[in-house]
């Protein structure tokens, strides 16, 4: 019965989506400075796309004026100035050049962009949405700020090489709604696969930095963190979270299970916490529909490591996270059943234990509690034990972490200034 109803509903949903898209299209063919709706929509979309994260240098006071270093596995890029300044920004660009930059990865006069600019995601953007973003960017103060974006080593400093990369890994592709899914799902997919570019951090990459689409959203190690699996996987993903849990996390940085930290704090502060509740729910519905991997439980860890970890946990962790790993909502993350601690790659967990972390404070959840650093008090063996314990206590299961892993992580974190 339920199946039949779903099938009947699908074409209706597609029809509704089509109506929404067609209506929007009727509104704007180009940029209209007088059109408040277009500018306001563009402001919202620029927030969803988190443009400021890369294009605003924190503390500079100059929004979208570029200059922020972007760490990539291939070297450091510097995000360009996208204010309307004609010389150093994008004021002289045509609308088509702007739309092509977002959706085709080509800059002015056809220059190739590096895929740190997520055109591989933005390609799904409608032209109207792209123009709305342009309309909004036209309203921000023009800042004269020349940014030398190309500072990659040879041969990557030759932009034409990106044409080869695009040939290999990039197909410009408008978003195609799935008629078998709800309008809400499709809105979520449009955002998550497109403007919100979740996969840029959460999808594993191949050796040339392109998305491994066979493992979409299954987690990726970058900038000293592991962006976790956000499929519906029971253990490592969002399988145990409800749609409301996900939406609350994206809105406030907190839910009953966990709190935001690391790179996601910035995304949350600049982007998701300012998104509309219906869009956050749509993204959550879409993510909940990404199939989990249901991997076999990890091999049982060394009992002596677990025993040592039990003791360290009782002494150092249980005061806040509770002896049963249940934590305190909005303050101390729950560890029991938490995907954050059961990722195959323990980088984030090690980082939080060794260096401490602060959760994101938002208007709705301002506490911004901190995890103190334990790197100075716990040896590599201690950390391996307690982390292995957390990953395998209370029904959790994840691969054992060894002292050597901790040592390497410690060295890597020492070299990081962030």
């Amino acid at each position, binding site marked *: 019965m339920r199946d039949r109803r779903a099938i009947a509903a699908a074409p209706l949903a597609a029809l509704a989506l089509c109506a929404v898209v067609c209506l929007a299209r009727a509104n704007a063919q180009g940029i209209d400075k007088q059109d408040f709706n277009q500018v306001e929509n563009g402001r919202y979309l620029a927030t969803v796309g988190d443009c400021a994260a890369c294009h605003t240098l924190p503390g500079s006071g100059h929004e979208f004026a570029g200059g922020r270093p972007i760490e990539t596995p291939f070297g450091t890029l510097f995000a360009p100035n996208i204010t309307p300044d004609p010389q150093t920004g994008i004021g002289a660009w045509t609308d088509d050049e702007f739309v092509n930059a977002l959706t085709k990865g080509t800059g002015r006069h056809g220059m190739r962009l590096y895929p740190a600019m997520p055109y591989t995601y933005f390609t799904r953007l409608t032209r109207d949405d792209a123009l709305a973003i342009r309309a909004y960017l036209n309203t921000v103060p023009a800042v004269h700020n020349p940014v030398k974006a190309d500072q990659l080593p040879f041969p990557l400093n030759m932009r034409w090489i990106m044409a080869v990369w695009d040939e290999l890994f990039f197909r410009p592709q408008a978003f195609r709604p799935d008629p078998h899914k709800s309008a809400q799902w499709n809105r979520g997919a449009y955002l998550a696969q497109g403007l919100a570019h979740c996969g840029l951090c959460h999808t594993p990459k191949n050796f040339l930095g392109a998305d491994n689409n066979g493992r979409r959203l299954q987690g990726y190690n970058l900038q000293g963190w592991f962006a976790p699996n956000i499929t519906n996987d029971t253990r490592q993903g969002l399988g145990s979270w409800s749609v409301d849990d996900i939406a609350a996390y994206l809105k406030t940085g907190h839910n009953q299970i966990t709190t935001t930290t690391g790179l996601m704090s910035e995304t949350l502060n600049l982007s998701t916490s300012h998104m509309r509740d219906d869009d956050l729910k749509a993204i959550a519905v879409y993510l909940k529909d990404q199939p989990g991997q249901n991997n076999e439980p990890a091999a049982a860890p060394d009992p002596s490591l677990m025993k040592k970890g039990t003791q360290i946990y009782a002494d*150092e962790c249980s*005061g*806040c996270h509770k002896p049963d790993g249940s934590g305190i909502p909005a*303050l*101390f993350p729950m560890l029991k059943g938490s995907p954050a601690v059961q990722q195959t790659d323990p980088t984030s967990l090690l980082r939080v234990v060794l260096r*401490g972390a602060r959760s994101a404070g938002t208007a709705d959840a*301002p506490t911004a509690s901190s995890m*103190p650093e334990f790197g100075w*008090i716990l040896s590599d063996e201690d950390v391996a034990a307690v982390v292995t314990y957390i990953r395998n206590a209370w029904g959790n299961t994840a691969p054992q972490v060894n002292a050597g892993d901790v040592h390497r992580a410690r060295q890597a974190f020492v070299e990081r200034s962030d």
Partner: protein
Amino acid sequence: MTQKLPHKDAVIIGLGWTGSILAHELTDAGLDVVAIERGPWRDTGTDFSIAYAQDELRYRIQHELFLRPAQITVTFRNNARQTALPVRTWGAFMLGNGAGGAGVHWNAETWRFLPTDFVLRTHLTQRYGANSLPSDMTIQDWGVTYDELEPHYDAFEYLCGTSGQAGNLKGTIQQGGNPFEGPRSRPYPTPPLKQGYGHALFAEAAVQLGYKPFPQPAGNLSQPYTNPLGVTLGQCTYCGYCEWFGCANYSKSSPQTTILPVLVRKSNFEARTECEVTRVNLDNTGKRATGVTYVNAAGGEFEQPADLVILCGFQLFNVQLLLLSGIGQKYDPNSRQGQIGRNFTHQTLSTALGFFDKDKYNFNPFVSAGAIGMCIDEFNGDNFDHGPLGFVGGGYLGQVQTNGRPIETTAVPPGTPAWGAKWKQALRDNYLSTINAGGGVHASFYAYRDVYMDLDPTYKDRFGRPLVRLTIDFHDNELKMSAWLTDKYAEIMTRMGAKQVVKHPRKGPYDVTQYQTSHLCGGAIMGDNPGNSALNKYLQSWDVPNLFVQGASAFPQNAGYNPTGTVGALAFWSAAAIRSQYLKNPGPLVHA
């Protein structure tokens, strides 16, 4: 050369409890507010890390969180015949430092004063006659009543998440609470803490003696709590490292755990830490504050102009800034003229140690919290007939032992050698089975003509400003009270089953080296007219109407409770008056 900074709507001096509350309220009202704080910024995760917070040597013995006397200190003497000398290591009281102020290192006892405490002179003279009080006792009414403060006590408790059991809900006495308390409009936001064995045994004995014991109201939270500002506190772990320490797991009410996370998000708020205000500036009429002058850590001097100046420092330093800035008339104990420095008070603490049979009693004293414990209020304020006793005032009696920390929890029976094998054995035998100091009598300190503050004629601080001079001693009234109350406490200890009870009533002279509490009060007191007070009932200076002075410096005398609940309530009360009255029509809120 002094650099003049852009104007602000309000400047707040000191970012402890009152500074945080006022900053929050005034920024909510739309004002552009800067808080200038002498000490460093402090944050739970980085500064009170769970990995080292429970370090008795560092925090308790070496005073990690406190002002350094080299930074600023006070001079002390017992009476005007003596020459005051500078305090070079803190003793009788501790002076907080940094963001959060004393709200970081307190135990978090969160009491309300009795309704009669606010009308003390009127009440005592009505009950016992005008001649019942010593002639040099200068107690007076506050100018504000309990009923006026009640909503603001409530606001402070709900900000803090205070754990307790109501004793009087809107006039109806509640089982298990303090039947003597003033009526409260709501129950405490969280239920009382769980009690340790020693605390519970005290309550049992108190009931047997006909008293009505109740759990001490605590800012160490019995359960997680999200306050009206959306800030979440954790659950107390009973680690016993509260007073002298910052709480490492977000479970003790403090500015850090209740307000600062919201305040720092506001674009109309700014905090400048490691900046010491050296004076409040006045215009040429002397009737209007134009802002403050301060010195930053690099030694640079700045003038911060502002429409509204709010002193939110610790009691001593509020009074010092008034004296140094020439605001109001300094108090002269001989002529009894002048208000600034008058009615300086502290607290009268005493205890009795109870040694119990180690084979029958195990109190596990290390399982504890700053404001844990069971108390009785039969002998507080004027809850009992003082007629035949020859003294006024009182305090709560409680088994409120806050910790079993290893360096200080070393009580041994009288006659034990002070060191060596016998001392060690006695310590081993008694550690678990002794009710230590910490429990005892927490009693009032009333005001006297010759207990006061002024500027020291000799000693100066690092900026060349005179230090504050404290002239303070216990009077017969307090010593008599302490002896009587300590006997009452010892009776309960005996009823608990102690095999030996050793009484330590408070004895004179006042000793600045022995810790009592950090509850210094008075010196810039509130009242109903400029002839008896420095501030009106809204904590507004009678002399300079755009200056408000928060904190316990406004207490006309000190009651038998810990002061922070009342300090918080007064801050909300004063802030409400500023928001609802002063900002609409800046000027005196009470016409003399």
